[in-house]
């Protein structure tokens, strides 16, 4: 199967500091790939390189290739790229405004939808993120009044509303309770047929629960990537073993 996202010999430096180096990986379509590793190992940077949010940085050096369906992301139209590859942040960030406005934000940017279409998109996106039943009667209330777990699912629904191909999540459950975390993990599993997921997480157990493949990063290097079952039982690299078994990290 062709890779959805391929990274070839990627190196990234920001402000003259090397953050990622020599990274090679392939992410297959309709899988959940977890990116694990301690803080400052370059996980978040990897996501921001893929959707090019990193380009807001002042002194950025990037070498190597990042390919989406075989095409370098830097050659894609940036707005199109970001619609195709969504990003969920660690802390949920609802836009000030109603729940409806939040979900409709992305579709409205494209100005192609009539109002009733917009309503369908909002409903199906909220359903996909398992939030519809909780909010269907108050779509016009402020999104800021939702609980933390609901806000994060709102952010997922908002990303789904622009119909991406890949959804990247940057420690999406780091501030959430176990029940909200389970709901989000559920959504990921359910939606695997529709999207390719990249999950950056600090939580090794979470990676074990949801992922098909796992990539372990340490100090900006990809130490090892493999099937989740193998990474957690028979890692090839000693450092991976140390991390997943809790000896370091």
């Amino acid at each position: 199967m062709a890779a959805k996202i391929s990274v070839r010999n990627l190196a990234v430096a920001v402000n003259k500091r090397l953050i990622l180096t020599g990274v090679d990986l392939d992410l297959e379509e309709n899988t959940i790939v977890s990116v694990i590793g301690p803080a400052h190992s370059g996980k978040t940077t990897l996501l921001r390189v893929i959707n090019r949010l990193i380009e807001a940085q002042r002194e950025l050096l990037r070498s190597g290739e990042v390919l989406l369906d075989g095409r370098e992301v830097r050659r894609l139209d940036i707005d199109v790229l970001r619609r195709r590859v969504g990003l969920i942040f660690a802390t949920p960030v609802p836009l000030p405004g109603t729940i409806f406005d939040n979900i409709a934000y992305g579709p409205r940017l494209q100005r192609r939808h009539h109002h009733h279409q917009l309503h369908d998109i909002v409903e199906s996106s909220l359903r996909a993120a398992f939030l519809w039943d909780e909010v269907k009667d108050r779509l016009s209330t402020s999104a800021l009044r939702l609980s933390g777990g609901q806000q994060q699912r709102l952010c997922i629904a908002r990303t789904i509303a622009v119909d991406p191909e890949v959804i990247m999540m940057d420690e999406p459950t780091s501030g959430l309770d176990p029940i909200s975390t389970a709901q989000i993990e559920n959504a990921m599993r359910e939606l695997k047929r529709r999207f390719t997921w990249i999950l950056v997480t600090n939580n090794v157990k979470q990676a074990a629960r949801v992922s098909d493949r796992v990539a372990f990063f340490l100090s900006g290097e990809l130490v090892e990537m493999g099937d989740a079952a193998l990474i957690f039982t028979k890692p090839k690299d000693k450092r991976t073993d140390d991390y997943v078994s809790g000896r370091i990290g």
Partner: protein
Amino acid sequence: MIIRPLAWQRIVWVALAAMTLFTLVVLFFIIGFIASKGAHVMTPEFLFGMPERMGKEGGILPTIIATIYITLLAIAIATPIGVGSAVYLTEYTRESPVTSIIRFGADALSGVPSIIFGLFGFILFVIRLRMGWSILAGGLSLAFMILPTIIRTSEEAIRAVPYNLREVSYSLGGAKSQTIVRVVLPNALPGILTGVILGMGRSVAETAVVIFTAGSSLLIPKSLFDPARTMAVHFYILAREGLSMERAYGTALLLIVAILLINVVAYSLMFRLTRKMR
């Protein structure tokens, strides 16, 4: 002598309360004094009548109209330019010596005495550009005067919009301009409006600039090119020439009420606009 902490706390409390009280007393004394001197001339004939004998008798209708025209014109010119500059400074430039010079310039300009703007407007608009004493020249000069305030308050307001809101917009495929229009400006609106209201208040109350650039005609202005006398100028002339102190107080009272109304209306408007966001 050693003061016990508890006693010390009480002393500080009393001192701070006294300072606050003093401010309030002075404020209410001024308003009360003007109200008591001016309230009895506040009749419909005064508000909607034409002045007679240079304002010694009759009403102040032309000055009310002139104030509204000039202030609205100044705001209409200064707001888009000011907000535009603020957006440029915050969103489209990186911090550099150039931006700090611009910022320093705006700060310096907002501290320049208004009569300098009056003189500048007189030379540039009234004489050089041959506008004569007119609503247009007055509005333009006032716009220059309040521009720095609007730029700086808008800039602070835009800067206070959390960066992660912008990132959310970008990550949903929003272009920079869409992000500014749909996320940044709506969230900065309360702060921007505060600057606009400040500018409005200063325009309504300004005399020096207006005397130099709009003149002091007591006729109702019919076009942008007519000279006019605002309430603040009228009040100044009435008092200075000793024409009618009670009519001067009446005008002053209306001025205070007007500024109060502008604030109340603007903030309630802002509250309605932002309510659904919260």
